[in-house]
């Protein structure tokens, strides 16, 4: 946290003084992760519907799922205005977290148009 005067300054934090004793506001971190979870879930449902409508079958559908998840991650990073360290404790919170969580919803909404 040494480098972080206020949230706007975005220079990298020096690693060795990285807070091994975490003094984060836990409830804000949870709030941020909830936002990520909601965005991911909503977009995985939308992605499922789209791949159903496009009539994709087999791996094409799953590829579309990963594309949608990648777009969500990029969108979320843009939303955090690239100063990720003031909103999340590590990078994969926003890139990988919940990547496969929305898979089942995706599959469900993928099969709807196929009925």
């Amino acid at each position, binding site marked *: *946290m040494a480098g*972080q*005067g*206020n949230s706007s300054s975005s220079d990298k934090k020096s690693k060795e003084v990285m807070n091994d004793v975490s*003094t*984060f*506001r836990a409830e804000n971190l949870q709030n941020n992760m909830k936002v990520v979870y909601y965005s991911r879930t909503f977009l995985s449902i939308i992605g499922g519907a789209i791949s159903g409508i496009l009539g994709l079958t087999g791996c094409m559908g799953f590829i579309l799922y990963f594309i949608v998840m990648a777009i969500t991650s990029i969108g979320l990073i843009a939303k955090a205005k690239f100063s990720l360290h003031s909103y999340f404790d590590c990078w994969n919170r926003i890139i990988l977290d919940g990547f496969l969580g929305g898979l089942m919803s995706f599959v469900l909404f993928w099969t709807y148009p196929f009925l």
Partner: protein
Amino acid sequence: MVSKTEETQLNRLENQVDNGGGGAWEYLCLVRKLKVRRSEKVLKYGLSILNDPKKRSALGPEEWTLYEQVAIAAMDCQCLNVAKDCIKALLKKFPESKRVGRLEGMLLEAKGLWAEAEKVYSSLLEDNPLDQVIHKRKVAMAKAQGNISGAIESLNKYLEIFMADHDAWRELAEIYVSLQMYKQATFCYEELILSQPTVPLYHLAYADVLYTLGGLENLQTSKKYYASTIDLTGGKNTRALLGVCLCTSAIGQVSKGRNKEDKESPELQSLAAKALEKEYRQKADDKLGLLTSALRSLKI
């Protein structure tokens, strides 16, 4: 807990309402949310809303919380008739509610009729012995009567049951500090730090008490807690900066030269001094001379 943005928002709203810019209801809600004590403004603007039927009906159910807020503010400003009227209105709406019973007890306290207030509180306690607010009011009543030891004793009894209530710990700490019983106060502040470790003001209060206790070990611990306050407030807490400087010079005097302490964080006090000068230059540069002479006398 009032954060910086909330404080600026509160001040902005206060100025806006003071020079007639409207927004009284938002201001009253913010005061309630932040739990700050602005009794005379709350009384003035609360009454302006309550006396205007149109605004009052616009509040809907919130009207009754406003009545309660104005009643407490009126007691604080010694306008007991207004408090009585508000409580009467609340009683009409909620005949047997315990909250209104509590308000009646507080009104008796404000009037100074301790016996009746005691009676009201014990009757309320009968049907709900675990009502935390009533216990706290009894402690406040003991304190108001000047019976500090009674307040401490009942507060300790309260804390035996509700151990995790950090407001009570804070009250106990402040009473101990007012009685200069610093040993017990340090215990209470440690409890507060344990319950909310990232609140810088608990670290600061703990460091103040340790500094007042004195002794090499306490001073070193106190300096560390001033440092943690600086870290948690990003160096913007002036009291913590001054605290570091004072601790360093006190450690220097007590250990008279064999200060093995400096190897851990040598430039902390010089950095704190520079930060202080920078802040004074920005905010109160006429007092800069005063600051530099004080720091020089502390040999930093």
